[in-house]
């Protein structure tokens, strides 16, 4: 008799939400897998975990992880998460969202969350385009890449996300691709143990849409590009880490300590509250 076996990570996933919506060859499953492995290796208290996402393919991750989770409006995950974290600083608030969500429509929220150094952990799956709406050009689309809205080749300069995050004040910044599963998992563990604003970018292949338009129509071909172009160059200058067809600089770029916003805020609140109570009594 064949005994039905539970998936070793079923503790972390909502079975009722399966099958997931992601295409064949998509890297988002790898991102989710690395994330759950990091949770498992750290034995993180799931009662304390809140997953917040915006809109897009990777945004559905919030619904797949068996923790408190909220799938916000497009671009607003970080603003929502700011309220969550300040109202209950004991919570481990992780924003998992895409490049379009976090850096186009949500770009302003990103730079301000990083500037405040609020202890929110951001995991960005960068697929170089708007996958869910069918592959439009976005803020990370490489120059000359063809998308459904850049049919003649993209002429907008893309963001270098690790540079942006570092310049905005993040205390931990890393970039990996879905090829780097072990390093990504280690990096996620590092991020979950830090206090301030943290950012990990993962290049996640979108072969069905982005790949098809750019001569990499299978997951394997996109992974081939990651393999060929990736250079581990940890703690190198993030301003020189632009993604090009020839080179994808990966690694940890920033790992510093800085008092978190919520700690500063709550310390101040405690002092003022005590003083106000003295005044009353």
């Amino acid at each position, binding site marked *: 008799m064949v005994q039905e076996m539970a998936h070793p990570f079923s503790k972390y996933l909502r079975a009722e939400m399966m099958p997931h919506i992601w295409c064949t060859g998509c890297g988002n499953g790898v991102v989710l897998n690395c994330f759950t492995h990091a949770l498992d290796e750290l034995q993180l208290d799931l009662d304390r975990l809140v997953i*917040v996402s915006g809109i897009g393919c990777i945004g559905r991750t919030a619904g797949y992880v068996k923790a408190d989770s909220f799938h916000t409006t497009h671009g607003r995950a970080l603003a929502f998460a700011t309220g969550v974290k300040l109202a209950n600083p004991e919570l481990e608030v992780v924003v998992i969202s895409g490049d379009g969500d976090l850096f186009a429509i949500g770009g302003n929220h990103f730079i301000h969350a990083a500037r405040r150094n609020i202890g929110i952990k951001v995991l960005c799956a960068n697929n170089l385009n708007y996958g869910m709406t069918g592959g439009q050009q976005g803020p990370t689309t490489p120059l000359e890449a063809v998308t459904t809205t850049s049919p003649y080749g993209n002429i907008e300069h893309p963001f270098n996300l690790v540079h942006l995050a570092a310049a905005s004040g993040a205390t931990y910044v890393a970039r990996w691709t879905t090829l780097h599963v072990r390093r990504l998992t280690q990096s996620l563990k590092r991020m979950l143990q830090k206090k301030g604003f943290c950012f990990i970018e993962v290049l996640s292949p979108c072969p069905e849409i982005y790949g098809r338009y750019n001569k990499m129509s299978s997951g394997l071909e996109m992974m081939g590009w990651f393999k060929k172009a990736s250079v581990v160059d940890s703690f190198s200058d993030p301003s020189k880490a632009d993604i090009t067809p020839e080179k994808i600089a990966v690694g940890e770029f920033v790992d510093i300590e800085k008092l978190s916003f919520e700690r500063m805020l709550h310390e101040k609140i405690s002092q003022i509250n005590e003083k106000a109570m003295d005044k009353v009594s």
Partner: protein
Amino acid sequence: MPKVKNLLTGAHFMNGDVASAEGALVAGCRFFAGYPITPATEIAEHLSERMPELGGIYIQMEDEIASIAAVIGASYSGLKAMTATSGPGFSLMQENIGLAAMTEAPCVIVDVMRAGPSTGQPTMPGQQDVMQAKWGSHGDYGIIAVTPSSVQEMFDLTVEAFNLSETYRVPALLMADEIVGHMWEKVVIPPIEKMSVVNRKKPNVPPDQYKPFMPDDNLVPPMACFGEGYHFHATGLTHNESGYPRTSSSEAQTKLVNRLCEKIQKNADRIIKVQEIMLDDADIAVVAYGIVARAALSAIRKARENGIKAGLLRLITLWPFPENYVAKAAQHVRGIVVPEMNCGQMVREVERAAKETRVTFLSKLGEEPHTPQEILEAIRRVA
């Protein structure tokens, strides 16, 4: 846990914005996120000082979109939360007011209305956002909006807005105007133990049986918060009672959206508040709200001195619209006068409820609201 002894009580002289801020504190609000905007800035300024005294959180966000998003997040973390703004900020907030309605996040939004559209006249009063209050975000949803006519009501109705938002898990809007916001008047604050403060209903089932959007008898689902061990999911997508997306089921869409509307409509009698003044024997009714209702009150008194039986129906609740009160008045009056500081917004609702009874609209835009004399003249024309 921060201590909360120092809530204001007794009689105070303050402006409307400050009264609203103090009302929020009494209602148990411990999270404010906002962005500076005339004429609502005093609410943020006052709460930046007062929130920490009570152990609460004040944060200035990067814009109004972020402010309301943070408020919804704080609400889901278990705090009563509020933001305050004016027309341009209210427009930016509409996106996430829809999210709050869809995910049934209790929260309060104060709109100290100024003159629009666009940047308009920032320091001048208006009542131009009252339809936006109901219809501002896309899609259908229920909402509650109340509107103060005095500084005392800035306090009272902020408390009321919190109580309603907690009861019905809905964004509650305080639709004030620049005059009520900036005016200084006496406010009497009862001791906290004499105030009615409502908190959201919590689930009484274990986490494995909890369905975050399974409504109770009053169509409102009990609310678990983050960190309480329920491991629930909430989304702005159409969802089932378990909170999971159902993006192609017409049954799920029909059931959810109808409930979001009906939890307000079917509880309308419990929600709606109006003030009826000399309306029983009136031949002419004035339907007014906000600062304009004060001029209307003078006008109906003057009309009575002049032998015209006029009465006032003052709307305290704007949404759900008190249509039964309008319909009742319409049955025995010859005409209804509706003065508003806009080009004709709530008057459309009055017309709908008044059916055959003639409704006369009186618009006023700019620096001053209607004078009692202007409303009196309209009453005379109708009488």
